[in-house]
């Protein structure tokens, strides 16, 4: 089993436990974010939406700490895999989160000081929404026609 598989194993559980929202109503999100320091405003959110097509908002512990992130595309994924980063699960998770987290800005220092489960959980959310699913789910999706 490679790192990617182990990350995907429990994506269904993640979906149930953690609220991951795709935001279409930018203005509403911008209003909610006003309470946060250095949060993106409506113009930045619109720009992200226009650049990435969609973005997601999630929290890890169900508290006020939220993350805004996008999915990873195939070209970015290929570049990441070709660096060999996927050989180490922690490095892989860090790379996914660094690449896709739009807000708050993720720094090396931030990663090191965050609670231990934040980066693994966030990377699972990102990979799941990027289309990576478990073997079991992949088999359940397919229908012979």
């Amino acid at each position, binding site marked *: 089993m490679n790192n990617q598989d182990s990350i995907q194993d429990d994506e269904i559980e993640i979906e149930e436990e953690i609220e991951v929202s795709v935001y279409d109503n930018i203005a509403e999100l911008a209003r909610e974010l006003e309470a946060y320091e250095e949060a993106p405003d409506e113009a930045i959110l619109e720009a992200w939406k226009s650049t990435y*097509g969609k973005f997601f908002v999630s929290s890890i512990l169900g508290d006020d700490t939220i993350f805004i992130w996008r999915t990873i595309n195939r070209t970015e*994924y290929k570049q990441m895999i070709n660096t*060999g980063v*996927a*050989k180490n699960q922690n490095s892989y998770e860090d790379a996914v989160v660094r690449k896709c987290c739009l807000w708050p800005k993720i720094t090396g220092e931030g990663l090191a000081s965050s609670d231990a489960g934040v980066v693994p959980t966030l990377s699972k959310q990102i*990979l799941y929404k990027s*289309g*990576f*699913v478990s073997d079991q789910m992949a088999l359940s999706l397919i*229908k012979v026609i």
Partner: protein
Amino acid sequence: MNIFNSGKYGVAIPLTGLEVNINGLVYKDPICIARLLSIHELERYNNFDTQSPQSMMMIEEEIIENVFESFLGITERVDWGKIDAGVISTIVKSIIIKSQYMIIDIINTVENYKSSFNVIHSIAAIVSRFSATPYDQVENLPISEIIRRYSILQATFPEEIHPLQAPE
């Protein structure tokens, strides 16, 4: 290609629960139409190193090139570089697992197919055999033409093709 003629001999993979970025537009729950692997492709796949993420990534892209037909309702060519990274992996994984599963569970697979057939498929097989026409060509004929040809064959070769009987 439309909903009636896409995916012949194929599979549908509804990417349920995903909003997928395809050619710059976001599609909710898109349905991928593809086909399963051939015996030759499956044997080749089994010989490759699928443990390394790099090699698996390359295998996935070779397979998608061979088996992908379309996303239902999307006619333009898919830009695979810009699609969400796991979509290719999920489609290919579904296809590989389903192809393997059908072989492993071949008795049930055959029985499931049998239960989905009815008399018109048998009639098509008879028409195919007695008119030396490939079965897939017969299957593409309008129902009326299949039955007309069957009637001719049955009248011409009554010894070999027995008349249909109403179920008791």
